[in-house]
């Protein structure tokens, strides 16, 4: 009897074929051509003021890429910068695991994260690689075939037999059946990248308005001219809505139907372990896991059993469930102490693909949300693309045909009503 399928972070669909893989490879070429050097050599020509609604990692990245393009930026955040999900996630910057459609964007994101690091926007980014573990022969078979698709899509992955995996993860349980390894995947520390982006934005003269709630918009025809907040009006030549799961609420103020739904995702953190006992980012057995730069072991994993709400309290049941999944993989650490449990709110969409592009019916309003639990890894690419969408909306730049084709399925208002269905996906 094969173990229940716990490859919750493998999103590539089983019936994807070689043509989809080749399309993904081509898509990455288009994205790389247009945005491959968006940090080092950004497209200029942006003028006027962009108001970013939402101070999470996507908001900060979008603000930064927009300022690189020359826009003046004001960012409005209801509470604290990266105070919500952006500060409560696994810290993974991963390509391995995504659908073939999202893979090119995440390969671009990895590249831009590295460029940010190289240009001094530090986030404790380390390219540790990522291993997705199999705990049954059935899962090993699934991962091996996914590996072939990923290679055909241009992602450098390799299948590791159990003893090879053990060399990478010496404390791993004997019940593992090998794993898919992606050496170029990375991990980073959310609060550090947020601090670096804030500093750069302040140097560039951006206004970072925290503890400021958006109450409405001033509009003129199909354009927004100002964002109304509790602390007064913020004039805008363009607006970007990127408030994670709260984007639906903000969008409604403009009559937009943005199909983003909240779901809780709980995380556990242990005391610091002095030695580097787990180097790569690890996924599998229904959880994601890493050892942070400070030595804590951080792991978590959501799913359909979680609460579809903005509630971020931890539950003893989830703490036990996640700890058990972790100990099944790493029984050697049963003596290490859990010191903290917390939770983020994942922004799910019906098809688990982001809402990224110009908002239908509005000339100068764009959206970047719905990253379905992968916003942290996505954020560099999302920031570059969101800034580009703003430039396209204001006519300061034209998208290449390839990029236009890739963004078309991400149109923010593509979902008419919000079906009760769920987008699946756990945060990583």
């Amino acid at each position, binding site marked *: 009897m094969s173990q229940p399928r716990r490859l919750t972070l493998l999103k590539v669909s089983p019936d994807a074929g070689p043509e989809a893989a080749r399309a993904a490879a081509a898509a990455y070429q288009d994205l790389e051509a247009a945005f491959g050097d968006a940090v080092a050599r950004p497209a200029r020509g942006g003028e006027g003021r962009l108001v970013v609604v939402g101070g999470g990692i996507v908001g900060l990245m979008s603000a930064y890429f927009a300022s690189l393009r020359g826009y003046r930026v004001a960012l409005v955040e209801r509470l604290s910068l990266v105070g919500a999900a952006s500060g409560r996630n696994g810290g993974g910057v991963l390509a391995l695991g995504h659908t073939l459609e999202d893979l090119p964007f995440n390969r671009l994101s990895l590249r831009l994260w590295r460029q940010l690091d190289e240009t001094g926007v530090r986030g404790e980014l380390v390219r540790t690689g990522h291993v997705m573990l199999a705990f049954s022969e059935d899962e090993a078979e699934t991962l091996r075939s996914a590996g072939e698709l990923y290679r055909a899509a241009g992602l450098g992955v390799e299948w590791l037999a159990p003893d090879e995996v053990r060399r990478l993860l010496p404390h791993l349980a004997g019940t593992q059946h090998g794993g898919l390894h992606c050496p170029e995947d990375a991990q980073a520390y959310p609060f550090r990248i947020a601090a670096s982006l804030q500093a750069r934005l302040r140097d560039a003269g951006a206004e970072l308005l925290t503890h400021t709630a958006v109450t409405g918009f001033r509009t003129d025809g199909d354009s927004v001219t100002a964002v109304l907040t509790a602390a007064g009006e913020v004039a805008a030549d363009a607006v970007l809505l990127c408030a994670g799961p709260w984007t639906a609420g903000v969008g409604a103020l403009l009559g937009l139907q943005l199909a983003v739904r909240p779901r809780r995702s709980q995380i556990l953190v242990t005391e610091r372990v002095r030695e580097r006992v787990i180097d790569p980012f690890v996924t599998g057995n229904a959880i994601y896991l890493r050892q942070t730069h400070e030595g804590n072991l951080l792991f978590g994993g959501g799913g359909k059993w979680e609460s579809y709400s903005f509630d971020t309290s931890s*539950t*003893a049941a989830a*703490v036990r469930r996640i700890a058990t999944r972790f100990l099944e993989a790493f029984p050697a650490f*049963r*003596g290490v102490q859990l010191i903290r449990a917390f939770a983020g709110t994942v922004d799910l969409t019906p098809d688990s693909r982001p809402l990224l592009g110009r908002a239908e019916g509005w000339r100068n309003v764009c959206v970047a949300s719905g990253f379905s639990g992968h916003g942290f890894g996505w954020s560099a690419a999302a920031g570059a693309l969101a800034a580009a969408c703003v430039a396209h909306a204001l006519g300061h730049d034209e998208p290449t045909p390839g990029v236009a084709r890739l963004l078309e399925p991400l149109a923010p208002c593509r979902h008419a009503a919000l079906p009760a269905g769920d987008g699946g996906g756990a945060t990583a």
Partner: protein
Amino acid sequence: MRVDAVVIGGGPAGLTAAAELARRGANVAVLDENPVFGGKLLGQLHESPDGHWWKGWEVAEGLEREAREAGAALRGNASVWALEPGWRVHVADALNRPGQPVVYQAEVVLVATGACEKPVAFPGWTLPGVMTVGAAQVSTNVHRVLPGGRVLVAGIDPLALTVARQLALAGARVAGVFLPPPLPANGAAGDVRSTLARLSSLARLAPTPWLRLAAGALNSGLVRELAARVDVPGGVRVWGVPVFHRTALIEAVGDGRVERAAVAPVGPDGEPVARLARWVEVDAVCLSGGLAPLAELPATLGCALASEERLGGEVPLHGPELEASRPGVYVAGDVTGVEGAEVAMAKGRLAGLAMSRRLGLGVTDAELRAARDGLERARREAKIEFYPGAREAHADLAARWRQTAAAAAR
């Protein structure tokens, strides 16, 4: 594991409540993170004005025996890490042994988690050898190992003076009791005037008539002003231990452990005179920053809390029968305000009765009223008033409870 009542914390309040509940026939589980029961009682040793010595460990043994004989189940090394509605108490074995119950389900829960010491920060305070006066008391009186051969105590309050005396009784050389480091991070603790005001609460405990008079007299603002200016060379002797109420601890230094500490006289404005600083050879520095209630469990449940400095910090709001703002959750002991062991036991008795009544175990109004009166009496007669104004603080909180209860009823 299903029980009628869970008591979190096996100190004076918890054990007394457990005995009360068990006597009424309730199936009670007492969970304490330490291997033994009694909480802070275990290390307590102080002399009351009539010359009788309060030996906390003897009181603890009595309370433990009483709870066990009444039928309460006591479990040590049991660290409660979560309390969730339905009242589910999640507990872990501190020695990570498998096979013990990990969840207790109960209709009523008593949070009797006591208090912990507030920090006193100064350069060198993370060195081994720097510890709280509570740690020094437990090490000396419970584990029977002196924290050091030559000890400096910083923070002048009833607990610090009591522990300084215990250290001397146990054979340590106490270099003196000094003001805590006057740093912004430590707040008013280092302020000469507020220290002297707190000292006056010692009047009832001062050993000699002169000191009782002096301590009592400090209540008046004038004497406090005068005392703030007068430094007594060699310190004022209290129980044979020199107290330097005008000299403050500044720093501790040493290679991998405390080797000496710097002290300096402090002006009436509370600022140390650096050029007059001197070194004191000590191998331990014991800090007294005051106690703060440990109200994490009620906080995680969303119980209403009130910040009340006269009780040591944030305390859970509770009704006259110690029920918190979540029905079925009760609070007793120092978690409701730092008032010492006798008041904690009186609170435990009242909570035990209130919980028994809620379980339908036939508690009369007269018994409850007697327990409430008992608590009032214990407060009036409490020998050590850790924080002046505790009784007024409780009166204010009771008024706030009535307002919130009334608001909720509307």
